[in-house]
C-alpha cells in the first residue's frame, strides 16, 4: 500500500450519516489501514444535481477526482453509495462520450487520463478484497452475542457503474459479517431501493418502501438491518416511529452500518463507533454492543 486511501465523505457523512464516518474511521484505525480525508472536497453532484444539469454534475465529480489526483491517492473511498455511483459514472462517461470529456477537460490540468486512473472504491469492496474474510476472522476479538441480521446493500452501490459486488445477488457484506461471527438471514430485498430522497419529497411513497423492507427483514427473522449507505440507514432508521403511527406495526429494529459491527468485533469503542446515534432499536443496540456499565447511559 503505497499512499493512504483517499477518503471522500460526501455531505451525508458530515450530517445524518455521521455515525458512518465515525465507525469507518475507527474500523480503519483498528485495521491499521491509512485513511486520509480528501481536502476541500465538494458535493458529488448526486441524483438531484444530475436532474438539473448533467455536465456541471460531472464537473463536480471531476473536481473531486482532480483533488484526489493532486493528493496522489491511487484509491478514493466513497462510503455513500450515491457518491460512489456518481463518481464512477463520471469516469465512465468521460471514457464513453467525447463531449463529456471535453466539458471535464479543464480538470486534472486537462489530462483526463489521470482522473480515470483514480480507482473510486466502496469501503465494502475494499474490506472484502484488500482485507478479506479470512484475515478479518483472525483479528476478531469480541464474540458475537446479538441476534441475526439482514444485510441490506441498497441499489446504487451494486448497479451499473459499480463493481463493489454482484448486481443482482450481492454477498460480500454477508461473508464479512459471518467472518465476524454474525449470523445473517437470507432475504430477497437485499438490493431493493429504499426510495432515497423520496422520503423527503414523495414522503408517503418513500416511507412505504422502507416499511416493506423492515417488514420483510423481520419476517425472515432478522433482529437488525445492516447497511452500506447513509441514505438507506437514515430512511430505515428515522421513520420507524412514523411507520408505527401509520401502520400500527412496531419494529424498533436497529439499523446499523456494517462498519459499526465490524468495528465492534475488532474491539472498537462503543461511542467512537457511533452507536449512540441510532434512532430506532436503541435498547437492542445497547444490549448487543454497549459495555455493561455504560449500558444504562447508553439508551437515553
Amino acid at each position, binding site marked *: 500500500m503505497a499512499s493512504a486511501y483517499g477518503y471522500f465523505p460526501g455531505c451525508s457523512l458530515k450530517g445524518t450519516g455521521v455515525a458512518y464516518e465515525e465507525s469507518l474511521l475507527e474500523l480503519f484505525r483498528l485495521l491499521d489501514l491509512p485513511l486520509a480525508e480528501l481536502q476541500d472536497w465538494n458535493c458529488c453532484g448526486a441524483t438531484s444535481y444530475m436532474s438539473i444539469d448533467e455536465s456541471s454534475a460531472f464537473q463536480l465529480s471531476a473536481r473531486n477526482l482532480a483533488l484526489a489526483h493532486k493528493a496522489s491517492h491511487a484509491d478514493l473511498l466513497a462510503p455513500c453509495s450515491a457518491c460512489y455511483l456518481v463518481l464512477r459514472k463520471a469516469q465512465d462517461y468521460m471514457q464513453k462520450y467525447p463531449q463529456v470529456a471535453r466539458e471535464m477537460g479543464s480538470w486534472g490540468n486537462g489530462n483526463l487520463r489521470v482522473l480515470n486512473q483514480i480507482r473510486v472504491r466502496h469501503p465494502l469492496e475494499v474490506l472484502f478484497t484488500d482485507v478479506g474474510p479470512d484475515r478479518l476472522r483472525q483479528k476478531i476479538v469480541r464474540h458475537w452475542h446479538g441476534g441475526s441480521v439482514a444485510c441490506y446493500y441498497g441499489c446504487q452501490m451494486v448497479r451499473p457503474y459499480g463493481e463493489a459486488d454482484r448486481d443482482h*445477488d450481492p454477498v460480500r457484506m454477508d461473508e464479512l459479517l459471518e467472518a465476524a461471527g454474525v449470523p445473517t438471514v437470507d*432475504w*430477497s430485498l437485499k438490493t431493493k431501493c429504499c426510495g432515497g430522497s423520496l422520503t423527503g419529497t414523495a414522503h408517503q411513497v418513500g416511507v412505504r418502501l422502507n416499511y*416493506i423492507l423492515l417488514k*420483510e427483514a423481520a419476517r425472515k427473522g432478522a433482529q437488525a438491518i445492516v447497511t452500506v449507505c447513509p441514505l438507506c440507514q437514515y430512511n430505515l432508521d428515522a421513520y420507524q416511529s412514523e411507520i408505527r403511527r401509520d401502520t400500527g406495526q412496531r419494529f424498533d429494529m436497529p439499523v446499523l452500518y456494517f462498519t459499526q459491527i465490524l468495528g465492534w468485533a475488532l474491539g472498537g469503542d462503543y461511542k467512537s463507533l457511533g452507536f449512540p446515534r441510532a434512532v430506532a432499536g436503541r435498547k437492542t443496540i445497547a444490549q448487543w454492543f454497549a459495555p455493561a456499565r455504560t449500558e444504562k447511559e447508553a439508551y437515553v
Partner: protein
Amino acid sequence: MSDPHGAVRIGVYTCHCGSNIAATVDVKALAQFAATLPRVVLSRDYKYMCSDPGQELIRQDIRDHDLNRIVVASCSPHLHEHTFRTALKVGGLNPYYFHMVNIREQASWVHVDKAQATRKAQDLVCAAVRRVAFHQPLERGRVAIHPDVLVLGGGIAGIHAALTLANAGKHVFLVEKEPTIGGHMAKFDKTFPTLDCAACILTPKMSAVRSHPNITLWTYSEVTRVDGYVGNYKATVLRHPRYIDEDLCAGCLECLDACVYKQAKVPDEFNMRLSKRKPIYIPFPQAVPQVPVIDPETCIQFKSGKCKKTCIEACGDRHAINLRAEPEIEEIEVGTVILATGFQTFDAARIPYYGYGKYPNVYTALEVERLVNASGPTGGEVILRDGRKPQTVAIVHCVGSRDENTHRWCSRVCCMYSLKLAHLVKEHTGAEIFNFYIDMRTPGKGFEEFYQKLLNERVHFIRGRVAEVTDWELDPGEEGKLVIRAEDTLAGFVRRIPVDMVVLATGLEPRADAPEVRRLFNISCASEGFFLERHPKLAPVNTFTDGIFLAGCCQGPKDIPDTVAQAGAAAAEALALIDAGYVETEPNTAHVEEAVCCGCKTCISMCPYRAISFVNEIHKSRVNEVLCKGCGTCVAACPSGAVRQHLFEDDEIFAEIEGVLSNA
C-alpha cells in the same frame, strides 16, 4: 512493342443486381470505364447477370465477338462463380478464362458514398481485367468418393439421417457421446402441437438403428481426430469402456437389481437429477443399445476395489461384465460426414433474479418434461419437491433468449413447448397456469391453432417479461408462495402473482464442446456459436468444407419437424455426392517448375498434406496434385519461385495488385 496478350479479347459484364448494386455503384459509368481498358473489346451492364438471359448474353457474345476472357462484376464469387464458369463452358470457352469481381457484398452494400463506391468498383474491375489476361485454360481434377458416411450425434437428427442413408444402401457409422441414442427428444413426454407421445414415435426409429445391417452404432464414443478431405476422410473414434460387452450382454438387466447398492444413490442425469440411479444403470427403459453402463466414478469396485461384485455373479456364464475393459480406438474411412451434435439448454442459474437453484420450486422446462413423463422420476405425476401438487404454476418465457445480457437470439421452440407444458401440467394437476411472454411466436403448421386451443383452455397469457421470482411477501395471499412480479403490459399495470411452481422456459444454446467439434472438422461457427451453414437460404445444410453437412440444432435452434427435414436434406446431399461417385476438385493446385527448382526442400516442410515429395534422381521437389489442396503456402515460401499455383500465379496476382492501385 509486342503485347504478350495480343490475342486476348476480354468481355466485361457489370450487373445491376436489381438495385442492390445499381443504387450505390454507378453501373453505367463502370461499364463505360471498363470499355476503355486495354484488351476489352466489349463491356455491357445488365439488370441480372446470373439470370438465364444474363448468362445467354455471355454465351452469345463469346460466339459473336469471339471473346476469350470474361470478367463479371456482380456479387460474391462464393455465390455465382460456379454459375458463370458454367456459362463460359456452355459458350465453348474454358471456364477458367473467367474472373469475378465482387462489387455487391464488398462495395455497394458496405459503402454509402456513390462516387467512392464507384471508384472502388472501377479499381476492382481494372484489376480483374489485367489479371484475366494471364489466365490459362485449366481442367478440374476428379476424386473418388468413399461411399461410407460418418454421422456424429445420435439425437433425432442423427438417427433420421443415418436411417435415410442406410435405407439407401450406404454404410453409416453413427457415433454418440452418451451411453444411448435418442438425444433430447427421448426426454420429452409429448411433442407439440399434435401432442403425440415422443417415445412412441422415437423408439421405433431407435431400434431400427440398432437392428439396421448398414449402421454401425457406437455409443459412449467420441471422434478424436479427422484427416483427409471430401470423399476421403479418415476419422479416429474413441470408444469409452462401459464395462459391459455389448455383444455378450442380453439386456436382461439382472445386474442392476444385483448391484450391492440396494437403493439408487447417484443423481440421474437422464431425469435431470430429479431421481437417483445406481452406479450400474441403463439411462431409460427404451435405451438403445439395451446394455447397462458402469459409472466408475461411483462404483465401489472402482473406488475401493472391495466390492462383492454381485453384478458379475448375476451375469453368470454370459461373462458380459468386464471391469478391466479399456478404451478402444477405431479408425474409419468415410467419404462424407453429417454433424448432428445438437444443442444444450441455457443454464437458468445465470439469471439470479429468477431464483433457479435458490428456490426449490423453480424448475427448468426440461425438468418439467421429465415430471410429466410417465417414465419419469415421479411416474408422470407433477408434484413439487416437497410432494405437494401445485395449484398455480407460472411459465416464464424467454429465459436466456432475446436478452443482450445472455443470448440475443430467439430460441424458436420455447413458446410452443411452453404451450405444450401448460396444457400437460393443467391436464395432470388442474392447476391454474400463467404464461408470461414478450411475444407469442407460433409460426408453424398447427401452431397457432394450438395457441388458440390453450386460450380456450383458460390458460392465462400475460404479456410482460418477468422482472423477478421472489419470496418476499406483500399481501397475505402470498405467504409461503413464490411471487412473480411483472408488468401486465396489455392491462397496463404491474402485477404480483403468487404461485406454487415456476417453470423457466430456458432457451437453446450451442453445446459447450461445439468449438472443439468445429476445429475437428474444420468448419466455421456463426457469431452466436452455432455451426455456420454455407448459405442461409441456398445451402442450409452444407458447410464451407466440402463433404461435411449439418443437421438439427447444431446449426441453430429448431423444432423436431424442421430438424428431421434438415436431417433428410443432409442425407440427400451426402447421397448426391456418393452416387456421383466422384467430386471435381478445383484446379488451383501447386506445381513445380523443375527447370527452376533448386532442390532446397523448403516447400516440403510447408505442406500440411505431405503432398510434396522429393525426387532424389533429379534432386527436385514434386507436387502430388491429388493430395494438394491449393492453399499456396509452398508457393509463397519457395525462394526461387519454382513452385507455382494454378489460378493464383504470381503474374496474375501482381496484375491484380497493379490493377487496384492503377489510379493511385
